[in-house]
């Protein structure tokens, strides 16, 4: 029973989408209900899983089935498996997905256009995201990864704002570029890796766990660590790492590969923005931690300074651009860029603090960015205007909204007591310690990154001052009338998120005790393996 829980969690939305397909499209309420029930079932399944999860137990809920087995004669056997499982990295992210999806469903209650299509896409997206986090077979991962792109494209392109077509095409092209780079690495890995479990035959496997062990590489295959073959200045393994890195960095998004994000966010409807910021961005960080780093540890060590540098650039650059943003959603989008920079910095440090902080930051940002985009949506729903300068003195008119924005903004700028603080402090401690502990990063990376804290306070407080302080004024009389305080549905979405951010900020131990074994194992493995492999570059 236990081993099917994960598959249950994974495929419930797909089954629901299939059922929804046959429901009459005029009964729009049923689709909302079906999606909501699906999410509730997922919550129950997740709670069941959490109750049996052993934080020191490594991979759990593993389910392995043969999926594609093709005997290619002298070329060996192509073997792809249905292999899923959760560990200290994926469990927090899967939990985040389940929670955010529930909130997204509530937030989608106001959708009026083509309700059937919308909720079916949302359900497909749900499966795809959980699948990406759960898959341990690279082909399966890639399948889910691509599977995410399509619903997202349509959700932005059909239900989005005025420039939705531009945004959705930009999103699609960027992500497609990333997918292609990952695909190249995927094929190279497939050619190079042998499944040791079938002795005597050459079995090309997509199993991510096999890919981590240098012994499983076929000698003189393109990605074999002992292959002296060079492409330009670097060996093929380093190139493969870079391909994966760029592919996932686009998702993260990392400066300078980030410009799809603000446009996608600005045009996307509120619930889609929430999914995008809270969940899709995490796949970038997840991919680095699950695939790029463990499979190519020596390249990871070699490029750690680059990863950290780009992380720091993202932190500072994202914050600066956020400050120059006139659109509230754009500001929040750039703040996401800034905050995801911490994930890169934490991973690059390869210290237990840094990696724990990076994973913590992914969860924390998921919660807080969901809150931020919901709040931007609250305002947009009422006035259809997101320009910061068109508002003034909202505090007096919408006191509860003001309180909610205060909570979200201060949580996002890393105020202690909220989850972001724990994450960022750990990243800082880890990144700084890296200089003396493993010699990967210079101390100045962490020091420069603290600029992000100051700039973060500056752009948020400046926005607060412009929008909420002073005498009440809104552009347009209709807008002034439409500005009512939060309603119950909005409450029900925001309060759980705020409570979650607080709980993870005040009682970090449970989440940390999930992440810690993973972080420990990850950083040790990458460091020892990376140093043991002969550096060819």
């Amino acid at each position, binding site marked *: 029973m236990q081993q099917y829980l994960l598959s249950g969690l994974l495929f419930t939305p797909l089954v629901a989408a299939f059922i929804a397909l046959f429901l009459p499209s005029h009964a729009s309420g049923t689709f909302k209900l079906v999606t909501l029930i699906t999410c509730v079932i997922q919550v129950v399944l997740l709670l069941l899983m959490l109750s049996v999860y052993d934080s020191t137990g490594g991979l759990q809920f593993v389910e392995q089935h043969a999926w594609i087995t093709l005997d290619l004669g002298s070329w060996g056997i192509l073997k792809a498996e249905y292999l899923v499982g959760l560990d200290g990295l994926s469990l927090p992210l899967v939990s985040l997905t389940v929670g955010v999806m529930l909130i997204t469903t509530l937030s989608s209650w106001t959708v009026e256009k083509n309700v059937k299509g919308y909720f079916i896409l949302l359900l497909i997206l749900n499966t795809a995201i959980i699948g990406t986090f759960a898959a341990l077979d690279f082909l399966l991962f890639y399948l889910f990864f691509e599977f995410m792109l399509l619903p997202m494209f349509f959700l932005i392109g059909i239900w989005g704002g005025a420039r939705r077509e531009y945004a959705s095409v930009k999103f699609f092209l960027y992500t497609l570029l990333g997918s292609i780079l990952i695909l190249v690495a995927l094929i190279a890995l497939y050619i190079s890796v042998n499944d040791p479990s079938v002795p005597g035959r050459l079995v090309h496997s997509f199993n991510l766990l096999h890919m981590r062990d240098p012994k499983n590489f076929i000698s003189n295959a393109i990605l074999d660590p002992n292959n002296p073959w060079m492409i330009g200045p670097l060996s093929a393994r380093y190139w493969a790492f870079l391909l994966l890195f760029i592919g996932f960095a686009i998702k993260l998004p990392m400066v300078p590969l980030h410009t799809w994000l603000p446009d996608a966010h600005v045009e996307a409807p509120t619930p889609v923005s929430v999914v995008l910021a809270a969940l899709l961005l995490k796949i970038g960080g997840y991919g680095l931690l699950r695939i790029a780093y463990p499979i190519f540890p020596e390249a990871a060590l070699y490029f750690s300074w680059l990863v950290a540098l780009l992380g720091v650039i993202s932190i500072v650059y994202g914050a600066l651009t956020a400050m120059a943003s006139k659109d509230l959603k754009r500001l929040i989008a750039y703040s996401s860029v800034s905050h995801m920079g911490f994930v890169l910095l934490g991973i690059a440090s390869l210290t237990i603090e840094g990696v724990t902080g990076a994973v913590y930051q992914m969860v924390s940002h998921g919660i807080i960015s969901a809150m931020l985009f919901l709040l931007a949506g609250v305002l947009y729903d009422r006035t259809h205007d997101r320009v910061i300068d068109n508002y003034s003195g909202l505090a007096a008119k919408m006191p509860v909204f003001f309180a909610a924005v205060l909570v979200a903004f201060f949580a996002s700028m890393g105020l202690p007591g909220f989850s972001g603080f724990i994450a960022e402090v750990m990243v800082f401690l880890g990144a700084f310690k890296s200089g003396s502990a493993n010699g990967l990063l210079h101390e100045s990376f962490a020091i420069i990154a603290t600029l992000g804290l100051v700039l973060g306070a500056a752009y948020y407080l400046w926005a607060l001052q412009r929008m909420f302080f*002073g005498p009440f004024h809104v552009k347009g009389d209709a807008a002034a009338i439409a500005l009512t305080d939060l309603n119950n549905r909005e409450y029900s979405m925001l309060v759980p998120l705020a409570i979650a951010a607080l709980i993870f900020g005040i009682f970090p131990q449970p989440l940390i005790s999930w992440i810690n074994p993973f972080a420990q194992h990850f950083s040790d493995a990458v460091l020892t393996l990376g140093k043991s492999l002969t550096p060819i570059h």
Partner: protein
Amino acid sequence: MTALSFHTDPTLLLCIFAALLLPLLSFGASVLTPRQYSWLVSFNAPLLLLVSAICAAVALTSRWNDDPALFQITWFTVGDQPLSANILLTNTSLLMLVVVSVISFLVHLYSTGYMAGDNDLKKYFAMLGFFTFSMQGIVLADNLLILFVFWELVGFSSYMLIGHWTEKLAAGQASKKAFILNRIGDAGFLVGLMIVWANTGTLGITELLSSGSTYQWQTAASLCIFCGVIGKSAQFPLFSWLPDAMEGPTPVSALIHAATMVAAGVYLLVRIHPLFTPMALTVVAVTGMATAIIGSLAALFQYDIKRILAYSTMSQLGLMVMAIGIGIVNAALLHLFTHAFFKACLFLSAGSVIHALHRAQLRAHHHFDVQDIRNLGGLRQNLPVTFLTFLLGGASLAGIPFFSGFLSKEAILAAVWSTDSSVLSWSLLVAMVSVSFITVLYTFRMIWYIFMGEARKPLPVAPVEPPVIMRMPVVLLALCSLWLVVSWNPFDFIGWLLPEAYYTHVAWVTAFSVVWIAAALGVSYFVFRTARFDSNAILENAFYVDAAGSKVLGKIVQISATTASHIDRKWIDGLIHGSAYAHITIAHITGWVDRTLVDGFVNGVAYLSKGIGAFTRSFQAGKIQVYIFWAILAIIIFLIWTLK
């Protein structure tokens, strides 16, 4: 540090946690009170704070002069390194606990009168409670990270309180400035934490103090942590938020200046100064000196009653920081203690003046800026109690004998005097003496302007004293400005608070102080009784440190922000769009190639075959005659071919 007793006395523990958490409870209760019952908070908030103060006092009396005690709590563990949230009880921390909760209680009490009728009492009392809680956290924390947590929360509470009146634009700006300047300091503090963590693997203060290890980056670590102090305790150059913070309600100013915010920096220094390297301590001393001088000179030329007090706080904090910099920690702490009471007293008295005049203005329908001392005068007749409390507080600030300020300042002076003579200690001594002199000047300038002489802008309705609920806390604080809170002897600072002879009490320093203060009093009498100080723009703007800093820094940030945004739109998106256009252009070219060449070829082939088809089709047009013709022709050819 002596051996720690790991105390688990349940009553004591209960008292400590009550003192710490009751203000938090007050916050929670205020937030959860329904809006229509918001008057309730002005009852329960002071009540909870009273209980908190009593608990703190019980804890203090039960553990006074005991060995330091440590309650061990683990917050979370990263890898195998635990981050502790230990609570340390020493004389210092317990005393601060009491000072914070008592002053906070008095401010709460005062606020019930001062803020009566405010639209957002809920938010006000909630944040007041949270402010107190955060400060109590700093006082008790024995871990630098936990301290940092509360440190930032203090910043957040001050943001909320300074910006309490959201409809005032200036309040929004001032609160933003306070938080950002504090954040700049905090970023430095955080770097300090990183250095300490990377080099020692712990952030526990007691552990760090007892290990006594030194490491390479220690000066850097000390200075980085000191950055946090510069921000929080309004030291040069991050002081300008403090005068601006006067946009907040006056009781809040009292709290910020006396107990809950600026005191945090000095308290942190007191706790961790042994970790500082000598070089770092010199920087601390010089910074403190600069701040003390700038603050006192700026105070001399302000016209806003609250801004005078703000700059005076800054200058007094400078003295404390300076004292810690040269190792006079207990004297600095003593001054922090006495300052808390007399500054709270002065602020609340100023609040009473403002309150009384506002109410009079409302009734008289006559409006002028009541905080500008040039508009005031002669208030001693209308507000005798306030006059008296202001006078007592002012006398203590000026360091008049028989007041607490005299003793604490003298403790610093005597200690500065007895340090080794060097250029630094001599310049500190000169600075200290001049600052004391200027302090007397601006204090009595203020008193003369506000209370003496005749009203400069008389109101048709005479102002009346504020209600008892506001007068009572002020009177209590005024009484706490007397020498008795320090020791029984008005000329000897060694008493209950400095029980052991940390410093030798130098009799002639005392004598000199008395003469010096008397001279300053005389000067201030003759200068301010009749003549007025002309405004001095440089000093009024505190040497333009703020203007220059804000302008330059603001400009840099603004330019970088627009540049970053420009890069985003023009370069990165430009590249994307460029590649998109390139794609489209290529697509058009291939499209043309497709249409003209490939399709042309295909069409050509089709055309050819069509031509051939048309030609061959013409043979089969359905005409019998033609068929017969071809048939006969074929037969003829066949016959010719076979018969050949």
